[in-house]
């Protein structure tokens, strides 16, 4: 069984975001990048399936982006993916979901993947589109927001998370694509021996120009911080002063402290 996992590298979300020169996206300087959280669940699920199926399975991990995404690909290989494909694209962050999906589909088309895993959304862009679009472009079965997964080699039994915590159970025929939600599993930490092993795994680099054939269908016209509508108070300072201030405010503004 041939398995593909798509991962995106995103900035650490506790960072401060400043608009870049074009004012259409964030400035990358000073940001630390890591694997999109949702994609960690996708990698883990693919690796678990590989462990279940043994050598009958092969897991390729793919990422589109500049050189730095090599780090995320190495992490995925250290978690257990067999090989990596880096689609080298310095402008990946500026592309719309339609273009990203087209690049992935043009790589995957004809390569006979039985199962594709993606995250349900990226944390920085959060469009929740790329996975489903890839499935549509490839004409394969698809379901989203998985919190449960089982596969016997012919069908996938997927548990989708719905609002309020109810789940919908869906049976998909392979080939299929699924998008992974938080909590689907517990992603592993790569061990040192596996990190060493990952260094010897194949990492294929493909220039994006070989795969990209479409322009964007949507344009970002501005990128800006939210307008602060909160009339809330902000307190900073040393802890003991803060504690006294907070107690005072709670006494005044709420009925819970007397």
């Amino acid at each position: 069984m041939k398995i593909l996992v798509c991962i995106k590298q995103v900035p650490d979300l506790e960072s401060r975001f400043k608009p870049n020169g074009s004012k259409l996206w964030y400035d990358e300087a000073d940001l630390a990048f890591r694997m999109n959280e949702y994609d960690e669940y996708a990698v883990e699920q693919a690796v678990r399936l590989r462990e279940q199926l043994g050598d009958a399975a092969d897991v390729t991990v793919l990422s589109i982006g500049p050189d730095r995404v090599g780090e995320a690909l190495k992490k995925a290989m250290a978690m257990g993916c067999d090989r990596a494909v880096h689609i080298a694209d310095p402008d990946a962050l500026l592309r719309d979901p339609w273009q990203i999906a087209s690049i992935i589909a043009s790589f995957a088309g004809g390569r006979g993947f039985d199962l594709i895993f993606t995250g349900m959304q990226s944390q920085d862009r959060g469009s929740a589109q790329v996975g489903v679009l890839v499935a549509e472009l490839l004409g394969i079965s698809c379901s989203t927001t998985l919190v449960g997964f089982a596969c016997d080699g012919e069908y996938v039994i997927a548990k989708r998370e719905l609002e309020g915590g109810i789940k919908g159970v869906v049976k998909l025929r392979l080939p299929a694509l699924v998008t992974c939600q938080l909590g689907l599993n517990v992603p592993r930490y790569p061990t040192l021996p596996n990190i060493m092993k990952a260094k010897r795994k194949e990492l294929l680099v493909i220039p994006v120009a070989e795969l990209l054939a479409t322009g964007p269908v949507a344009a970002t016209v501005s990128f800006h911080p939210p307008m602060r509508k909160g009339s809330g108070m902000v307190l900073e300072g040393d802890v003991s002063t803060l504690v006294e201030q907070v107690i005072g405010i709670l006494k005044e503004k709420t009925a819970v402290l007397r």
Partner: protein
Amino acid sequence: MKALLVGEYREGNLLDTTYELFGFADQLGAETALLLVGSDSRLPAWVGTLYLADAAQYGEYNPELHTQLVLEAVARESADCVVFLHSSYGWDLAPRVAAGLKAAQVSEIIGIREEGFEVGCCNGKMRRTVKPATPSCVLTIQAGAFPQLQPGGSPTIIRMETAGSSSLEFMGYEPAEAKELNLTRAEVIVTAGRGIGKKENVPLIAALAKALGGELGASRPVVDAGWVPHGHQVGTTGQSVSPKLYVACGVSGAIQHLAGMKKSEFILAINKDKEAPIGEVADLLVVADLLQFVPALTARLAK
């Protein structure tokens, strides 16, 4: 501008959130038609063209057949845009319709601007304005971002059918995990977010909850990691609460968390990041390391 709205129907009921689509269309100034895979006995209260397909036949979740139905209605209506809720139903279906129409999709819209649609990004810390560049477009709107507009009246029904098989089969619903804890009655909730760092710090937050006479709440990652049981989760996939006092410790304020607690009477947030989006709903944001501040506050309350 003509908008085809796609309503939601689950477990035999029309979902109220469907009315948010009318609220959005109203702000957009669009003429509307609605498509629903639902039933005659649960019609939306609104006057207009309803493209109705039978959920008993096409299933409540069958994205392949539902996509066919939506595309058919778009063609009959010559709609300029198709609008979904950004929900488990909408975000699953919208890209399929976008692919079918070769149209741009803008996801999780929170506002309408002259230059385009406003959406959140970077986990709610920043905003983008996005403009579709195709003749028609697909839009999903953030849950709760637009008011529910319930116009009243009854629709004119056009029955929809589609042929075709599907590569996927819906097998049924599984109920949400039993909530062994009812947070909705608590007057005070003190929530542990991922910012607590590790499981061993849960007692720090629980101790503050106790000192304030309240219950322990948790954000999703804290539950997913197994630090706190699911019954404590606050948010769209947990419980919705509105206590007199909500204390968010190390919670960034993602939309799915805010949806479950923003109606609290007083919100105190403790976060080391002054820019964290929780600041938008907090009455009081304390910028501090919770590992120092929380125990100090607990100790002071015990005095």
